[in-house]
């Protein structure tokens, strides 16, 4: 069972700002899904290696060839805020100037 504090902690880790109602609802829904997932405890996996990727490919290489890059304008075209050809973000430090 998840406590409200645990739900709020996970939301903080996930960088999700949630309303009190969302936190409450998510806590109950996650608990229900996790109780279903707990059926995995019935499986003996003590001698079973984990699978992260089914075909066990590793160190796939391709030639390191220079290719024309995307122009900066194309990369900035979807940005919420741009300044002097750069992505603009709010000031992180109070004295660092104007935020976005």
């Amino acid at each position, binding site marked *: 069972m998840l406590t409200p504090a645990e739900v709020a902690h996970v939301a903080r880790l*996930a*960088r999700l700002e949630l309303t009190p109602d*969302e936190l409450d609802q998510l806590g109950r829904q996650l608990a229900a899904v996790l109780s279903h997932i707990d059926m995995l405890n019935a*499986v003996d996996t003590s001698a079973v290696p984990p699978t992260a990727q089914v075909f066990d490919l590793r160190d*796939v290489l391709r030639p390191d060839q220079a290719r024309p890059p995307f122009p900066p304008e194309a990369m900035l075209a979807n940005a919420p805020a741009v300044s002097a050809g750069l992505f603009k973000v709010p000031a992180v430090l109070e004295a660092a100037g104007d935020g976005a």
Partner: protein
Amino acid sequence: MSAPADLTFLALHEARAVLDSGTVSSLDLTESCLARIAAADPAIHAFLTVTADLARRQARESDARRAAGTVRGPLDGIPMSLKDMLLTAGIPTTAGSRILEGFVPPYNGTVVQRLLDAGAVLLGKVNQDEFAMGSSTETSAFGPTGNPWDTTRVPGGSSGGSAAAVAAGMGYFSLGTDTGGSIRQPAALCGIAGLKPTYGRVSRSGVIAFASSLDQIGPFARSVADLALVLGVIAGLDPLDSTSQPVPVPDYRAAFTPDLRGLRVGVPREYILDRLPPAVAGAIQAAVAQFQLLGATLHDVSLPYSEYALAAYYIIAPAEASANLARYDGVKYGLRVTDGGHGADSAGADLMSRTRGAGFGAEVKRRIMLGTYGLSSGYYDAYYKKAQQVRTLVAQDFAQAFEQVDILLGPTAPTTAFRVGEVSDPLQMYLMDVYTIPANLAGICGLSIPCGFAEGLPIGLHLQARPFAEATLLRAGHAYEQATPWHLRHPDVVSGASEK
């Protein structure tokens, strides 16, 4: 060959034949599809963006190539749609999410580029569950899609827009993505054919990532032969996707046979058919009998760990999603929300948290939370590592079964199309993918084809085969389709009553 009156319900290979005969142009096909979209899509809402001007221009270019004798292949001049997970240069791509509303990709995904290079005509981008998280297309931030057989019902999901568009004659094929059943389940609920290729068969470069070890792009069409044509164009190694594999791409139609002598099939013992609605179970049993009539031999097989696949999936897929969706931070593209929040973090975290809190829908938040929890300190071994170990067992199940049979048969989905709003409990919705999820965990290929109707709603037959055995899968599906009438039925999307 004279042109048929209604071009929209031709199969892709039939549309190809009328183009080749010269009786119909690509522009004729395109205008027919655009007219169908105008007439039927207000009630269905498959399309998020219709690219009518682009489609007409591409169709005219195709017709010019045909006149000049420089046709590029089987898809030249064929109208299609693409799930909004696939990046299309200059055309909005949203993944069904508010957080990407207005996003215009600067480049085409590999499969998109291959289709455009092959001369296919883009009708538009189609609806989906937000970031492909859902089984009904109801989690789209832009509203649900209706099932063409009954628009009060869902088309399945997450690629519901692709399935609905193809079922309603709004294009000859579509591409979707399948992470746990998102091609096969909507194909089943909409009465068409849908293929999830083997993991690594089709490049994922330029598809918006959900769960990178499970995602795979695949086609929807109104016949299995059409899937073979599309797969032949999109499959193959791509230097931009290090998980795509250097396995040769055969001529999939060359493997087609009128019968299935020599094919070994099995229905896994764990697929308890009497838990299904009787009409669905009956259709699956009749389909198995049809395979035997075609010459296939039936064998006893077992997938003992399949019952654990769903639980493992709901740790692995959300874990990968929680990492993949970290990129939506309000900085480089997409939505940015700087105020109106109620948190008390530092400015950087505030921007990210507020943007994500406002931009993601409820199901996406659930999955991110679930994935973050399963990966978090103290829970990693109990959840994430455990799920990865169970994944190994699920994959071993299939490897053993495929020593005895070439094809596994069963239902694609546990129900026919349910009503919009009918399934509100998240876990109940997750169970819609109980038959399709194991294939994604194991990386094998799977196909859904229509095998009957229950109260006017389509039923899907699920065929699974070993990795890179798409030719066997398509051969089996094609032979079954040739012996049965189900794929020839189409919904009456113009007057609103289904054609029975």
